């Protein structure tokens, strides 16, 4: 039976068929027919944001905390261009999004019509795939294909551009099972290569698991299998910023995050290992430091669903193309079948070495009784929220790195941060997206005042939808990470890196209709955090912290893992010209 309906109606039907319950969006002229259909139904909830960038980040927060694709609906022209930052953010972090944009009617395309932009042209390099739908008969099929491509293989954002006349016209609805996509990425890894890796694991004396966002994207089963594999082999494990939570921070095999601001023990173990097993990470430049000196003595396995990630930066001795959960399942099965062998004596020595690195206590900092140290603020936040049903979002900068260092993640999908693109302004809308998906949970956005101001308009969204997000702002009145780099490599010339004329965050909170809390004294911090947690509604917490604290440990740009800086005393003249050119 063929079903005839308008294009606008098809959009809603296709979203329903895909099981979509929430859409983040902002109306405008070119999407009015779709908004009219939204008005006439109750199954899909529409969240009205305050800026289209916020819609995309909110959808990212929704997607990352649920594992389901996030859906965005915005208008043509500025609606679409405002969404671009979010698209690139999702592309870099492999977050599945389906973004629907309105477009001027087909007969006006190319005429520089009002609110016309070449949306598919602008977003082609910002999406995994995009489409301009010129025929209503193809509309619903394209949306189903869009969901398939956003979620299969390496996930990513896709965009469907919908001209207004296509929304008004009537056509034939194509249902999900009728759409056959040729896009079917391989999920099973090559068994012979997995067997070779298992053999290397049996012989390894200094092995390490290096995991990334791919474990989380692969789904909860991947995290479960990873935990099983780590426990069974007794190998140490570290993770990128994107992979936090796939192995619990409380686990005794956990070395902490690695990379530029990663833990000493994690980076040294990466440098000195003899077998590196990369599971769903991509040898990002924040991780490798100087390529030529990256883990010089190790054989490297790389498990990734995207073949182009393999050998892109680092040569893989054991390249395995496949979905993390599928490959881990095979690894475990083969390792068990071959007799569960490890070099236990060598492993004991390896752990002794790691314990010596751990004893350095690289996250130590000098606390103060008069001023709140940002690390202390996060330690208290961790202590007072541990064990709760908690989700953390962040903005980008020093606070983000401190959050990754000082907060512990026990489960996947609990940590929302802009990793690849480093988008300031991500956290406020992302935290709202998380809270919409998990209304009963505790959702905290750990922010810096600079990033937070970039998308603070979304507090209006939080208030409107009664999303009780907690905005925990570490306010140092500085763009802290910029300031840190200027101190270390631009002769302490602090060009435009402090925030003058900051708003009064408590009054700002009241103006938005939420609660504002100001805390300046370490002695008041616990009570203030408890007040934030107990308040049933959105809170803006202005935590005034030490202004000149630097984030350590740090691998200076262009340096190797074993050239980490542990504190202020080691920073003199370490960054040379070759490193300064890097970001």
């Amino acid at each position, binding site marked *: 039976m063929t079903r005839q309906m308008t294009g606008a109606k098809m959009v809603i039907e296709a979203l329903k068929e895909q099981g979509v319950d929430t859409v983040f969006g902002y109306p405008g002229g070119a999407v009015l027919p779709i908004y009219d259909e939204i008005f006439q139904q109750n199954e899909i909830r529409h969240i009205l944001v305050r800026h289209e960038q916020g819609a995309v980040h909110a959808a990212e927060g929704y997607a990352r905390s649920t594992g389901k694709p996030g859906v965005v609906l915005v208008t043509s022209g500025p609606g679409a261009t405002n969404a671009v930052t979010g698209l690139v953010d999702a592309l870099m972090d492999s977050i599945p999004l389906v973004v629907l944009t309105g477009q001027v009617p087909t007969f006006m395309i190319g005429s520089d019509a009002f609110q016309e932009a070449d949306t598919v042209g602008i977003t082609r390099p910002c999406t995994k795939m995009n489409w301009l739908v010129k025929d209503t008969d193809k509309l619903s099929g394209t949306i189903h294909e869009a969901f398939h491509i956003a979620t299969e293989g390496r996930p990513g954002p896709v965009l469907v551009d919908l001209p207004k006349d296509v929304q008004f016209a009537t056509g034939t609805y194509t249902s999900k099972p009728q759409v056959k996509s040729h896009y079917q990425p391989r999920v099973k890894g090559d068994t012979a290569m997995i067997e070779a890796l298992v053999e290397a694991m049996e012989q390894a004396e200094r092995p390490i698991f290096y995991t990334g966002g791919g474990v989380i994207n692969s789904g909860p089963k991947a995290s479960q299998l990873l935990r099983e594999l780590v426990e069974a082999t007794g190998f140490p494990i570290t993770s990128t910023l994107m992979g936090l939570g796939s192995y619990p921070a409380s686990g005794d095999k956990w070395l902490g995050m690695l990379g530029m601001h990663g833990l000493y023990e994690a980076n040294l173990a990466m440098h000195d290992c003899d077998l590196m097993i990369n599971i769903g990470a991509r040898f990002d430049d924040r991780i490798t430091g100087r390529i030529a000196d990256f883990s010089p003595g190790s054989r490297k396995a790389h498990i990734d669903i995207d073949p182009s990630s393999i050998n892109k930066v680092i*040569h893989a001795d054991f390249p395995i193309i496949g979905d993390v959960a599928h490959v881990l399942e095979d690894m475990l099965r083969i390792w068990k079948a071959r007799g569960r062998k490890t070099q236990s004596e060598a492993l004991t020595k390896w752990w002794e070495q790691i314990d010596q690195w751990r004893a350095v206590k690289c996250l130590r900092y000098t606390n103060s009784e008069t001023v709140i140290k940002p690390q202390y603020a996060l330690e208290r936040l961790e202590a007072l929220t541990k064990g709760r049903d908690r989700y953390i979002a962040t903005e980008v900068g020093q606070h983000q790195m401190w959050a990754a260092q000082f907060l512990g993640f026990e489960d996947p999908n609990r940590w929302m941060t802009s990793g690849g693109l480093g988008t300031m302004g991500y956290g406020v809308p992302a935290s709202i997206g998380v809270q919409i998906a998990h209304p009963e949970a505790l959702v905290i956005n750990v922010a810096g005042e600079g990033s937070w101001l970039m998308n603070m308009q979304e507090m209006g969204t939080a208030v409107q939808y009664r999303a009780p997000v907690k905005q925990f702002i570490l306010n140092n009145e500085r763009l802290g990470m910029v300031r840190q780099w200027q101190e270390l490599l631009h002769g302490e010339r602090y060009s435009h890196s402090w925030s003058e004329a900051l708003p009064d965050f408590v009054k700002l909170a009241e103006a938005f209709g939420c609660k504002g809390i100001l805390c300046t004294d370490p002695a008041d911090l616990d009570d203030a955090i408890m007040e934030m947690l107990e308040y049933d509604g959105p809170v803006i917490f202005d935590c005034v912290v030490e202004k000149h604290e630097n984030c350590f440990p740090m691998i200076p740009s262009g340096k190797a893992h074993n050239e980490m800086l542990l504190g202020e005393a080691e920073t003199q003249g370490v960054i040379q010209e070759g490193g300064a*050119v890097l970001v």
Partner: protein
Amino acid sequence: MSPLNIEKGSTSHSAYDLRSHMSDEVETHTLAVLVQNEAGVLARVIGLFSGRGYNIESLTVAEVDREGHRSRITIVTSGTPQVIQQIRMQLERMVPVHEVSDLTVEGPFVSRELALIKVVSKGEHRVEALRIAEIFRANVVDSTLESFVFEITGTPEKVDAFCELMRPLGDVRLARTGVAAIARGL
């Protein structure tokens, strides 16, 4: 602090240097890319090359399967072996790309391009132009009293050689298609 005297490309000690640990030799490869013939697919492929800083030495595209909506893009590109491998992988993961073949790696292949060469000349030079055209098996497809248009098909090297011989004989204008290539044998 001294100014940063960093030459462009001198990143052998930087985190972004992806090449020093592998072969530095720049190779030329011919890639055949079978794509879904849909709006924007060529822009997508070209955007990949410009966005990631890869070279395009020549590019041809035309539909090869009307019913299946397939087009074949032949790209001649150059780079270190690692860059060539990346180009191939990046092309393969594009949604509308069905198949990528690196003809240079996969065995012997034939590559041809077509050129139209207009030579404006008089007297002895016209005779000489015709004689050279005969040696190169180029056809005359248009003629006036003061000009010829030759059509030549062959490898890019053959076309280059023909053009070089024509230049001293008059005012030369040139239109080339770029390379189309296909593997030899079954």
